[in-house]
């Protein structure tokens, strides 16, 4: 039993390494997304001479980092949709068990989510540095990792968990689509109908949750969603394996 466990762990580790290598380009794309949005944040501002303080006056729009994050959520969703049927993985990682594949995939999604959380937060500092070097003495700092590490940690966890749940959702949808198309349509309809009906409340919950300090309460539904997706995929794949 113990040797089985060790062998399985080794299998997952090996598979995970293969998958990281296969998806290394995805990490590179994330950097590109962040760089583009940093440039857009700087470039989209109103650039004009300040008539009041004598310095260059650049007005920044706050929504750019939000858009960057939403964009990265779409990006992880796209990756997770592609992940189970990635050709490179299918050819280079044959012979591994379904369970090992699932574990490695979710582990990879977790790593990507954590990367999104961390790099999105730190890229703000990169932006600050660039602006500061350009503008000089015109930035009033808010919370940073240095003066409020607990806020940074809360931000990091929230962003990573939300990204992870979006990734898991994409993965589960893909698996469901391949397992049974009618069931997929039925489930999507069941989920979409109440979302459509309660869209105002949902939007309110998201907004209030994001801007409140109840990080745990906000994250719990997303963690629940992630676990639900993981469980769903595991059940479906297990069933397919038994059938096969």
């Amino acid at each position: 039993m113990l040797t089985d466990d060790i062998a399985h762990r080794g299998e997952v580790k090996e598979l995970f390494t293969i998958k990281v290598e296969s998806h290394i380009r995805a990490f590179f794309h994330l950097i590109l997304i962040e760089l583009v949005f940093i440039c857009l944040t700087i470039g989209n501002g109103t650039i004009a001479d300040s008539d009041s303080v004598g310095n260059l006056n650049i007005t920044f729009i706050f929504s750019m980092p939000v858009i960057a994050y939403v964009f990265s959520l779409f990006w992880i969703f796209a990756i997770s949709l592609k992940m189970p049927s990635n050709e490179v993985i299918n050819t280079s990682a044959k012979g591994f068990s379904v369970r090992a594949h699932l574990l490695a995939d979710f582990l990879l999604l977790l790593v990507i989510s954590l990367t999104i959380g961390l790099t999105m937060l730190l890229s703000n500092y990169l932006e600050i540095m660039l602006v500061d070097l350009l503008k000089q003495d015109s930035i009033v700092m808010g919370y940073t990792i240095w003066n409020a590490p607990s806020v940074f940690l809360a931000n990091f966890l929230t962003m990573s968990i939300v990204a992870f749940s979006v990734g898991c959702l994409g993965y589960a949808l893909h698996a469901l689509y391949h397992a049974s198309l009618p069931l997929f349509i039925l489930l999507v309809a069941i989920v979409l109908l109440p979302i459509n009906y309660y869209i105002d409340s949902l939007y309110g919950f998201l907004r209030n949750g994001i801007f409140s300090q109840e990080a745990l309460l906000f994250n719990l539904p997303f963690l629940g969603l992630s676990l639900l997706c993981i469980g769903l995929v595991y059940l479906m794949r297990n069933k397919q394996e038994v059938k096969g």
Partner: protein
Amino acid sequence: MGLIVACIFILIGILLITLMRRLINIESIRKIKLIIAIYAILLLVATIYVGVFKPDVVPMTKQEKNTIVKENTDFLERAENGQLKGKEETFFVKTFTTDVPNNKLFITSNTVSDIGQIIIYMNKVNTEKRVVEGTVYHTNAYYLSLQLNESQPFVKVDGKTPSTITIHGAREIDKRFRVATDTMPLFPFNPPYFKGYSKSYSLILPGYTIIDLKVPRGVKVKDFNKLIVQK
């Protein structure tokens, strides 16, 4: 000067696009790994830069802190009692949501809202106006929640949530604009406040932040958006 900077930005943009086009074609995994490593180092440098060159917390004595906390408490009390009624200005509201059972209104704006009593004029197709009153009890750079004084059927107008509202209410004290926040959003976007005016005072305390900003010379207070912290 503005034109020159704009040109510089355009040039940087063109350079970046050219660079990206080359980078996207990279096939070697080793090169990608190298780029990721460089980016990681850049992020690390930026983080250290922010920590070392932009220290924010103003060292203060306990006495000073107590004074500020008391001032802020008085300020909030006066705000709650509606004593801070100042000059009325309109500013743009991006979105708003409501919490009907608790009689609260949540607004996002491209401006920092004032602490104090505000009046909301709701426009529905520019024909209908309703006035509701309440007290702001929670505000930060782009978020505001308002506790209404009494239950008011403002949430739905003819069964639909109005698409636009205008908030009136701005305040100026001795050419300074005070921003008091009792929380910061749990997102990466907790400000760095970028603006061409200087911070005269900043204090970060557990639970809330107080920032006083000097109104730049030549900026009219009525030009609310110009005064406001963005980002």
